[in-house]
């Protein structure tokens, strides 16, 4: 699906991570993995550091902190927010939703709309589109978009194919109505038949948790997981990304009448460094146009990774001027969402971590 929206702007972004620093090489050594293998994985995939959350910190907490910092930095009154959208696959509870809980914590007006979007790595773009729709077509003046997950605690520590990948983070993006005629273009896609490539089989209505869903399964490659864990077929996700992301980016650039040479930045979901660099090359972008360090600093942060790239790599530029950007989130679903258009200037705050104390 293609969509083009104007008369809205991003007014600021903040990102919060967990406070635990996980060192890939040190953890690998402790598990008895050879230095050569660890170096090879670090060099190729980009594994270095990831930031995960302490046990009592949830995506709701991470996003609340990001939202508080953003509201303080922008000086925007909570009472002026008409809607809150929470993108997450790791909500505090199955009911009520995170958006309603955050509505209460932040003290939003009772007239505000609050809903969750159950999406992962494509989720921030979906949320931005929904927030923009509310501003441009539904009379909202301001929408708070929160996107974050704590995926690190869903993986099995003895599943080396997935456990070192994820960091925990929450983001807050303020979207508001504006008089600007600048258009943001969006392209969305879904491959539901490929959904088994990234999944948490148990814990929902189809397969409720039970002693059986905690039964560990040893895989042919020696890794271990159970049905409540996040499971991923890395090769299939890689193929899906190479198949769908470049064509979505090409389509959204055609809508926006942009070429790679016109763009200041290609902002990709930081699945891992190898994936980002492979996609960037396939899309015809130069390395200098594509921030690719966030994975090595924070890990794969699910729906918070695009805002994290903006805060980590583009904040200085965005404080001063607008940037022509193209971006894409892609992952669980399988789902992808691309955007193209000018963003900024706005305040993208430095990334900070929070702890339980």
């Amino acid at each position, binding site marked *: 699906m293609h969509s083009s929206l104007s008369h809205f702007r991003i007014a600021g972004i903040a990102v919060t991570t967990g406070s635990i620093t996980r060192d890939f090489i040190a953890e690998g050594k402790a598990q008895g993995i050879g230095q050569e293998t660890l170096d090879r994985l670090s060099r190729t995939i980009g594994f270095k550091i990831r930031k995960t959350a302490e046990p009592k910190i949830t995506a709701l907490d991470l996003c609340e902190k990001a939202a508080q910092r953003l509201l303080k930095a922008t000086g925007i009154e909570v009472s002026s927010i008409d809607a809150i959208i929470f993108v997450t696959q790791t909500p505090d509870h199955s009911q009520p939703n995170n958006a309603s809980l955050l509505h209460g914590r932040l003290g939003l007006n009772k007239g505000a709309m609050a809903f969750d979007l159950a999406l992962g790595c494509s989720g921030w773009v979906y949320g931005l589109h929904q927030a923009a729709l509310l501003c441009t077509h539904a009379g909202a003046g301001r929408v708070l978009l929160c996107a974050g997950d704590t995926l690190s605690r869903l993986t099995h520590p003895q599943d080396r194919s997935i456990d070192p990948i994820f960091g925990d983070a929450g983001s807050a993006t303020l979207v508001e109505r504006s008089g600007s005629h600048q258009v943001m273009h969006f392209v969305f896609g879904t491959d539901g038949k490929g959904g088994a490539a990234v999944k948490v089989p148990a814990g929902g209505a189809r397969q409720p948790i039970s002693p059986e869903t905690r039964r560990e399964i040893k895989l042919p490659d020696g890794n271990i997981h159970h049905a409540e864990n996040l499971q991923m077929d890395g090769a299939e996700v890689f193929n899906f990304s190479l198949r769908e992301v470049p064509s979505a980016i090409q389509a959204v650039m055609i809508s926006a009448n942009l070429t790679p040479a016109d763009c200041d930045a290609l902002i990709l979901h930081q699945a891992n460094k*190898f994936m980002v660099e492979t996609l960037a090359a396939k899309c015809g972008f130069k390395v200098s146009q594509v921030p690719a360090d966030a994975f090595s600093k924070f890990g794969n942060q699910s729906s918070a990774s695009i805002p994290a790239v903006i805060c980590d790599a583009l904040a200085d530029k965005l404080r001063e001027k607008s940037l022509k950007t193209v971006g894409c989130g892609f992952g669980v679903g399988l789902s992808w969402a691309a955007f193209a258009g000018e963003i900024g200037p706005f305040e993208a705050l430095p990334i900070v971590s929070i702890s339980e104390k």
Partner: protein
Amino acid sequence: MALDFSQELAALKADVDALSKAELDTPLASLAQWDSLTVLLTLSHFEHVHQLSLTGDQVRSCRTLRELLSHLPSSS
């Protein structure tokens, strides 16, 4: 320009470190680095060089480089 078989073999070995010292019929399972990363790099090579999208299972099920290269249309 299409590559001949020896060029295809050399290109694959150049792109995928773990395969660089393997002979055509070396059992891939005997290589120390025949792992999920090597499968990923192999997929990337076939996609980038040959615009050929293999599945992870197709690569994992190959026992030798010869079998890997048999997936190329020019080899059939």
